């Protein structure tokens, strides 16, 4: 039997925020474009578990690829947020100095570095900080405001890039892990786990944590990706923190922050732990303790805050120390986009644009006349008879759920539905509404509850139909 073959002009490997941003930008051209994602849904690895901040890049290494692209992203974000209707709050970030030495570090290192990156910071007195952020530590001696920093919905961003691309003709292939790649002079052949073979004129490797292994399949051993774990604690206590509060950073990390969440609550974290397992998203007692310790120095009340959720994400750190963006050593038709570390969300508009330009120049692509950069407004009008609440904690209605299920890129997992609608994100963590949602997915999309995953394969909340006992001790 011959394997199915799909011909495309441009193929993106990886359905994270970077891959989806690239896909959207590629869909502006007169070309057939597609994306392969190994997991059952997009946005399921690093893009789902991060601090959800749009960074200005004020503290990026000046002169790096990262700093250059973050600068370009600053100009692109307002347009992207408007076109894709992404929930965003330009809160600004306040770096808090808890002593004279830290204040000196801000003046001597942070401010000049930001200037080199084209970001102007404004110094704040302790009184000015306390006025806006009364919960900040009384130890504060001053600080600096990064006005352009904001918080965004990272799930929405990734889904919206992909959905916008799909509305403009792109294809998304889920559960299509890549098993083989061969690069030729005029194209790339990509084999996938389901057996489908993709013949692409050009391929973009945006496989995040796994981009080194994807590169290796093509014979490129030039870089290595190691995971750096970041753990977070989410609280819904009212801490009175309306801006991102960050400490004076250390050598390896921005440190542990207190960050408002655009859809409610506050995020504490992250840790920065060098780990080896790219699949281990466990939180640890030690990591969670360190977060509490870290925030105690910034916002003392946050140390004892109640929590509705903790999670861990893995940053994709490259062995070169910077982003790797450009043609692979194996040939011009394989473009590497790797080592995006912790700024993938922030850089996504510019990185998507930049990579699409590389593709355009290589293939001589022309812009389409009919590209629509916008997404329709969600629930512009509440539909008749769909106004009842399904997710009790977040007051998410049946109409909002059904709208997600009826979109051109419907969620393929329960976590995907959570990321698209906000259902199951609240205090009960989905225990109240998940059975109803499983039922809705069965009815609307014909999904069998027995195989419907929470996220990855084998994560179904249902293990079997009820085995009716021969004689029940109780009446039902």
């Amino acid at each position, binding site marked *: 039997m011959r394997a199915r073959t799909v011909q495309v002009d441009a193929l993106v490997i990886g359905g994270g925020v970077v891959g989806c941003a690239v896909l959207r930008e590629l869909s502006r051209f007169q070309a057939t474009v597609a994306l392969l994602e190994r997991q059952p849904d997009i946005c399921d690895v690093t893009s789902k578990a991060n601090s959800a901040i749009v960074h200005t890049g004020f503290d990026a290494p000046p002169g790096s690829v990262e700093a250059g692209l973050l600068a370009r992203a600053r100009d692109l974000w307002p347009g992207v947020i408007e076109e894709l209707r992404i929930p965003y709050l330009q809160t600004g970030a306040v770096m808090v100095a808890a002593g004279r030495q830290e204040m000196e570090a801000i003046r001597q290192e942070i401010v000049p570095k930001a200037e080199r990156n084209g970001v102007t910071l404004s110094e704040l007195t302790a009184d000015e900080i306390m006025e806006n952020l009364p919960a900040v530590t009384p130890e504060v001696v001053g600080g600096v405001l990064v006005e352009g920093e904001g918080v965004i919905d990272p799930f929405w961003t990734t889904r919206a890039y992909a959905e916008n691309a799909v509305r403009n003709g792109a294809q998304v292939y889920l559960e299509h892990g890549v098993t083989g790649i061969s690069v030729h002079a005029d194209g790339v052949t990509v084999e996938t786990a389901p057996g489908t073979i993709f013949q692409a004129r050009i391929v973009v490797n945006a496989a995040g944590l796994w981009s080194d292994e994807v590169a290796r399949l093509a014979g490129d051993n030039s870089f290595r990706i190691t995971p750096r774990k970041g753990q977070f*604690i989410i609280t819904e206590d009212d801490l009175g923190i309306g801006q991102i509060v960050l400490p004076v950073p250390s050598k390896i990390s921005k440190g542990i922050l207190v960050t408002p969440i655009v859809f409610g609550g506050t995020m504490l974290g992250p840790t920065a732990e060098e780990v080896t397992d790219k699949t281990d998203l466990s939180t640890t007692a030690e990591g969670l303790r360190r977060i509490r310790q870290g925030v105690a120095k910034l916002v003392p009340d946050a140390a004892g805050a109640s929590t509705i959720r*903790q999670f861990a994400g893995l940053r994709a750190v490259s062995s070169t120390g910077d982003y790797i963006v450009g043609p692979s050593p194996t040939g011009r038709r394989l473009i590497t986009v790797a080592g995006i570390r912790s700024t993938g969300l922030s850089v996504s508009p510019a990185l998507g644009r930049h990579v699409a330009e590389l593709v355009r120049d290589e293939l001589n692509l022309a812009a389409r006349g009919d590209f629509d950069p916008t997404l329709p407004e969600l629930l512009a009008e*509440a539909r008749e*008879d769909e*106004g009842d609440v399904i997710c009790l904690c977040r007051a998410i209605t049946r109409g909002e759920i059904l709208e997600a299920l009826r979109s051109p890129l419907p969620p393929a997992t329960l976590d995907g539905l959570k990321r698209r609608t906000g259902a199951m994100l609240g205090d009960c963590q989905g225990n109240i509404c*998940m*059975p109803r949602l499983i039922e809705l997915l069965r009815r609307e999309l014909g999904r069998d509850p027995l195989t419907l995953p929470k*996220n990855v394969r084998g994560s179904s909340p249902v293990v079997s139909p009820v085995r009716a006992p021969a004689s029940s001790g109780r*009446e039902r």
Partner: protein
Amino acid sequence: MTDIYDLAIVGAGLSALSFLRARGPVGLTAVIDYQDRAGGFLRPALPDPALPDASELVASFQLPAGVETLFASTAVGLLPSAGTPPHTVLVRDRAGTRHVRAARVLIASGGLEITREHDQIPGPRPAGVVTPIFVHQLLDRGWLPGSRAVVYGSSRYAAATKERLATAGTEATLVPSEEDGSSGGADVVEVRGFPRVQEVVLRRDGAESMLPADLLVYARGMVANTLWLKGSGVELDDRGAVVMDERYQTNIPRVHAIGTVVAPDLDHSRSIAMGEDLARLWEAGP
């Protein structure tokens, strides 16, 4: 639909039902509930021999004349009137958002279960770490949430959940969460396994042990369901429970509260008693 009710009860769980059974309507009375039937989140676990009073209440409950039920209707906000009544309860139902106006509001919105996340239990986030309400709703739909369960909790509700799982075909072990006199309670200190839970790590008297399971039912207790009261001005304590006096009066005139929403660690029998107590207080009128 445009009437002003004399009383709007938010929640049709045990405390509201016991109040209504003992008192009957208070003028024109509305009962609002997220679910499409009365009985609260405990309802799917009933009848259960370990919960005789709740089983009896739900089985025998008849809606008194003069009480209107607004089911599949969720209170999402409370706008107390500044001066003279009525108060307004914002309710979402199939048709959209409606304003239910009432001279008095009785908050009986119960609780949400404490999850593994509330207790900050480390480990991965696999399928199969749930609370009893999830288990009961899944079983109601004919689906089994696991083959080998650890049910963690000391309440009669935890025991009833374990029994129901066993009846449905799950091998279930009950692990008490705290001292109950006869046996030492355990702490869950870690969850292991991915994509499905495989092991639950317990600590009892300083010693750790491990139980294999593909389902952890976390039944350690409740927190008050008061998110919908955010911004209403109703006073909450530091655990988020509604603060009320001995006459079940909150800090806002003509807004009252009973049941789990005022005391999240309440046993369901005391919730029933609280409804009866308020009915007695209001015998001649509120």
